[in-house]
């Protein structure tokens, strides 16, 4: 499980065979055409267009869905046919032109939206860029909405995402590095960081881990996350996933590394601490008191979502004497006719709730509302009237659910709710002792967890008092002079007495 124990010699993973091997191009376009057809197994979206330039037959070859028709017409076909000359380098206005003799290059180029230009009697061929960059419009991510602040969200197009980043950080130090991951899908993955700020060891580590990935396909950033995270058995997410450019930018500026992937609007941020999951970009848009209170509320919500059902179960099944005399009557009277022990009661409600949540996610908006009404009102009321679950348990479970949804990160909210179940079992069999042991185990795990060489539970473990001001609470920006130390950024300062005008005014 630990790093370094893995055997270095591993079997090569199974790979879907492709017929294209390095192969010199033929001299005739017929043969080349035949080869390419074979390479793509006669797929029907591979299109050929024959043209004659200076009485030399030429062939344009491209994968129809990948190529932008307008680009093809404007930058390739039109110049070639109007000027009727063969010096492609000077005529074609494509933004990228490659020359090659290897047909394998042609095959991989075609899958990336290049147009292959073959000439009769010439072995060399051209790869002309005509990639269709269509993507959906930029919208606010549904799962990370804010009241105030940017409403921009990443899209599925990696170039457009990088463009959003570049617009936010107009600095040559912003470096993008591309990787090709997945033998079949050959997916484009990019890491972004700020040169001369991000810790070089960190960048090297991230690159090393991404390069180590040998897999058939990468479809979501979740794949990458599972391949490169430190502790795959931990219940806590070790990389922050976000669809918000402002959030990614903020983290990159603190010296972290972002990971973007073609075809997915969610990006990963590494390394992160536990408290990053409880921060929202919105905190910095409101007054700092409000931001601080919101953060404290969110951290309270962590404790609620984690332990509230367990505390309740332990109380009513082991330690009812801790309840005040006035309260105990209310709780006892609601429990009186319930046939199940508290644990079963809690499980019924929790499972019902998870079912409702899953059902509501998959359904379109209007129907999801119906599910909410059915779940919330009908099941809630009926289950109490039928004496299956007590009133108190409904309150507890509802509070737990609300608290877990207060977490700004979806993965974290799920992890916490999931962790609640073993705690419930522990407190149902051992009372508060079990609960305390369970919580201690979680705390020990949090303190021991490391991501990319930085402590996960920083600034609580190791304890750094100075950094509590931007993790547990949020002090005004001008008091946050230094970056968080856990990322080991090359430059610590991030703010230089912006309020010095105040001092001048007094003089």
């Amino acid at each position, binding site marked *: 499980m630990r790093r370094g124990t893995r055997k270095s010699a591993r079997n090569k993973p199974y790979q879907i065979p492709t017929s294209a091997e390095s192969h010199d191009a033929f001299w005739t376009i017929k043969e080349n055409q035949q080869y390419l057809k074979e390479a793509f197994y006669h797929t029907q979206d591979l299109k050929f267009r024959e043209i004659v330039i200076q009485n030399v037959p030429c062939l344009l070859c491209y994968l129809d869905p990948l190529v932008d028709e307008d680009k093809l017409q404007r930058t390739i076909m039109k110049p070639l046919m109007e000027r009727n000359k063969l010096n492609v380098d000077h005529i074609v206005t494509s933004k990228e032109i490659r020359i090659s003799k290897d047909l394998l290059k042609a095959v991989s180029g075609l899958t990336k939206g290049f147009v292959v230009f073959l000439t009769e009697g010439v072995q060399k061929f051209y790869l002309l860029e005509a990639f269709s960059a269509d993507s959906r419009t930029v919208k606010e991510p549904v799962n990370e909405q804010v009241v105030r602040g940017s409403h921009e969200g990443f899209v599925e197009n990696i170039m457009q995402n990088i463009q959003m980043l570049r617009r936010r950080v107009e600095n040559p130090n912003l470096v993008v590095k591309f990787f090709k991951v997945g033998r079949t899908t050959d997916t484009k993955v990019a890491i972004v960081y700020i040169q001369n700020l991000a810790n070089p060891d960190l960048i090297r580590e991230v690159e090393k881990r991404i390069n180590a990935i040998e897999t058939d396909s990468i479809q979501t950033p979740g794949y990458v996350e599972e391949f490169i995270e430190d502790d795959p058995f931990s219940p806590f997410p070790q990389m922050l996933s976000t669809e918000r450019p402002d959030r990614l930018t903020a983290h990159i500026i603190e010296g972290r590394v972002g990971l973007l992937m073609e075809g997915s609007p969610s990006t990963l941020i590494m390394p992160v601490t536990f408290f990053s999951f409880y921060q929202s970009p919105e905190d910095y848009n409101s007054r700092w008191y409000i931001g601080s209170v919101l953060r404290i509320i969110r951290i309270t919500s962590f404790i609620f979502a984690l332990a509230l059902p367990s505390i309740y179960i332990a109380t009513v099944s*082991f330690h009812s004497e801790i*309840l005040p005399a006035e309260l105990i009557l209310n709780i006892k009277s609601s429990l009186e006719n319930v046939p199940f022990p508290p644990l079963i009661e809690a499980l019924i409600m929790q499972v019902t709730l998870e079912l409702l949540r899953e059902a509501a996610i998959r359904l379109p908006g209007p129907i999801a509302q119906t599910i909410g009404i059915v779940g919330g009102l009908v099941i809630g009321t009926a289950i109490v009237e039928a004496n299956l679950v007590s009133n108190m348990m409904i309150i507890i479970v509802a509070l737990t659910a609300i608290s877990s949804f207060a977490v700004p990160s979806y993965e974290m909210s799920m992890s916490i709710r999931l962790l609640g179940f073993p705690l419930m079992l522990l407190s149902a069999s051992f009372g508060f002792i079990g609960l305390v042991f369970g919580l201690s185990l979680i705390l020990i795990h949090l303190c021991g967890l490391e991501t990319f060489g930085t402590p996960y539970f920083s600034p609580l473990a190791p304890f750094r008092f100075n950094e509590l001001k931007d993790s547990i609470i949020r002090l005004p920006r001008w008091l946050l002079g230094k970056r968080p130390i856990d990322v080991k950024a090359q430059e610590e300062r991030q703010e230089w007495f912006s309020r010095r005008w105040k001092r001048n005014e007094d003089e």
Partner: protein
Amino acid sequence: MIKKLFHTILIVCSTLVLTSCWDQELLKESKLVYGAGFDYEENNLIRTTFVVRNLGIPVSQGGVYSNRVVSVVGSSSRDTRLQMDRIISKQLSASKNQLLLLGEEVAKHNIDHMLDILFRDPKSPLDARIAVVEGRALDMYKLDHIGDTLITEFTTDLIKGAEDKTEATKMTVEKAFRYSLDEGQDYALPYISYNQEVQSPEFDGLALFHHTTFTGATLSPMESKLLLLMNDNKSSQTNIIEALDNDPDNGFLTNTVTISVRKSSPDMAYSFQNGKLDKAVINLEIIGNIAEYPQNHLMERSQVKDIADELSQRLTVRANDILQKLQEANCDFLGIGRDMNAYHHKVWNSERWEDEYKEIKLEAKVKVEIDETGIIK
């Protein structure tokens, strides 16, 4: 690694299966005792009364709480508790007991007999109020309810109300234990009697205790107040009513003045003779506002001074009466013995103190100062 994982799963599964919920005490499977009482029966037997709360229909569905009063006789309180289990359904749980009433007779015996069971169980309700009842505790509990309020809540609130008005000290089961074993410090429990006229229990002052037994002497609520002021136990409200006879024929029904105490500071002074404590003087200074005085507007400062002087005199007489009562009952409520032990250890002898306390000269001097006389008047 596989082996390790297997072991972890095995341990987790076996703890879950084998624990069989350990010493679970489900709240819904328990019967809550809200009040307990002890009485003395013939032949050294104890009668224990439990007030058990019934919860037939949930309150949310229109149910009402009610009490069931059960009473059994046995040789000890544990014996009666076991008998109790046989006549009460579900698991009896006394952990939320609010009130512990001691019958007058049983309190005159060693109260440790009854309370021992409470001090050994970690789940016993140590914050329950404890009081002495005139007559039998069972009779008090048999009243069941006063108006809409159930008897246990009613009596508990009665005692809490008295605590707020400086008529009783806050005595819980745990405090009774501490004081009863304390040398040189005695205590008093609230004394509850039955008022025939309004047909309800009534707070009737303090029952003076010496060590673990009730001395039989009680103080009226008015006397309790003054005693607590002398002991520096003032709570938020303290009203002292005193009759003055400066002008008996002015046509008013009453001749009294009421002051609400704002600040009181008692001060002890000891004098010694022959290596023994000879005399203890308590100087009590009371600063108060006039809360009621229908006879006069009190425009002049001198009038106020007159009232204060007369009050001082009268309260001094009263305070000395109280001290005498304490000495007769051999109840060292003011903790003079404790003071000796702590500050004048040379004269302290715990065995001799029993007799010594009755013989020392106790004297109280009360000085009243009046600060304000009211808003409009």
